[in-house]
């Protein structure tokens, strides 16, 4: 007797997404039936008992060389593309760092003399962190009885 297609198997709960993984097994939403996960190499092979497997045909040397040549050519192209992509990413990353994070840290020259050349630093600020404060306040904890040592005024 043919099964009514509108009769759902209620043993497995319906999940409203195509082929949703359910406890390691796939469930088809329309029928609610379990579809066993069968791997290709587990499929039963139709093979007669007296038939021996044929040995694989040997590839001609010329064909093999041609394939190897093609493979090397594509390998070289892929290496070039990878190198270009990597270089581009490095350059872009460098550009991002230098545009978004600038600091006025100063360097010492190798001779030890002071130099007012600022360097860029990735640990510095971008526009969103330019105004960031490290937290805590910058003030002392007591009202000072000392006379002031310096002062700010409108600049």
């Amino acid at each position, binding site marked *: 007797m043919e099964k009514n297609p509108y009769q759902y198997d209620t043993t497995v709960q319906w999940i409203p997404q195509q082929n949703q993984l359910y406890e390691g097994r796939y469930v088809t939403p329309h029928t609610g039936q379990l579809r066993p996960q069968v791997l290709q190499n587990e499929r039963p092979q139709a093979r007669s008992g007296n038939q021996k497997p044929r040995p694989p045909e040997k590839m001609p040397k010329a064909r093999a060389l041609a394939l190897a040549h093609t493979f090397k050519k594509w390998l070289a192209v892929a290496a070039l593309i990878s190198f270009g992509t990597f270089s581009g990413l490095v*350059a872009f990353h*460098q*550009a991002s760092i*230098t*545009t*978004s994070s*600038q*600091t*006025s*840290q*100063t360097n*010492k020259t190798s001779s030890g003399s*002071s130099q*007012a*050349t*600022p*360097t*860029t630093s990735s640990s510095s*600020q*971008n*526009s*969103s962190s*330019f*105004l*960031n*404060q*490290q937290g805590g*306040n*910058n*003030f*002392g*904890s*007591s*009202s*000072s009885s*000392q*006379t*002031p*040592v*310096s*002062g*700010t*005024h*409108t*600049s």
Partner: protein
Amino acid sequence: MDQAALRKHPSAEPTPPDYSIPNGMRREEFRAMGTTISLLLPESQAAQGARIVRSLFSEWEQVLSRFLPNSELSQLNARAGTPVAVSDLLYAVLATALTAAQATQGVYDPALLDQLVRAGYDRTFDDLPAVRFDPIIPGEPGGRWRSIKVDPIRRRVTLPVGIKLDFGGIAKGMAVDAALEQLRQNGIRTALVNAGGDLAVLGLSPDAEQWPITVPGQGQSWTIPLHHGAVATSGIARRHWWQGNTLQHHLLDPRTGLPAQSDLWSVTVVADRCVQAEVTAKVAFILGSKQGAEFLRRHHIAGLLVHEDGTWQIVEPWPVHLMKEV
């Protein structure tokens, strides 16, 4: 605003109160970037430290002054429209200025030099007459810093035709930070650098838990205990002039290209770095008391906002309970 008072003291640097010198330290002073640079350094390292800071400020001024026709900045401004290779220093200051402009949604605008000149600030402030009689030229809104092209790899900058850069305050703030960093790299662990009111400290002076610093109000001033970081004040008490009967000052509102019509007299800000304090004080002043306070609050930056009428408000964590009237 007390117009009589403004006319009476158009350009004088504020008279410094009797500042004390902490034990074991020495004060050094020199002129650079159109202002007085004041240092507090350990006695044993004062000469070395002063030499380092003087050299730094001198170099920065040579590169970044808009008043020196041969400065790198002037050369860059003169070549708008063409790509110009710039030094690491100019590049770093420009990049920081653009970052600051972006972070403040353009309220800080480093590309308003033409507007500043049109408003009358066309020479060093020391040379600026208290009253000018040139006609007032309408302002042109800013915002064109967004069109500046920067090539970070080759360090090339292209200014759009018609705009010029002015790094005034931000360069001073960065120079203070750079000076302290350089002192630290040279083994000096305690210092104060004050560039015309933009100051920052390194470490603590011997036997002290804080640096007592004066901050200005209108007709009064206070001492606050600074433990670390930087202080800067923006306002119109000093850099202002009259053009006919109109009061002009150097804090331009990029929305109009004209001196900001603020209800504030000054804004003092305490931040981790001097460049932050410089920029945020200026931005808060331009925005006015309400929006300026909101801006500081949003970024957790302590501020003292002095209104035109002399009243004041604070933005936490400003230590109002530790303010001591001088």
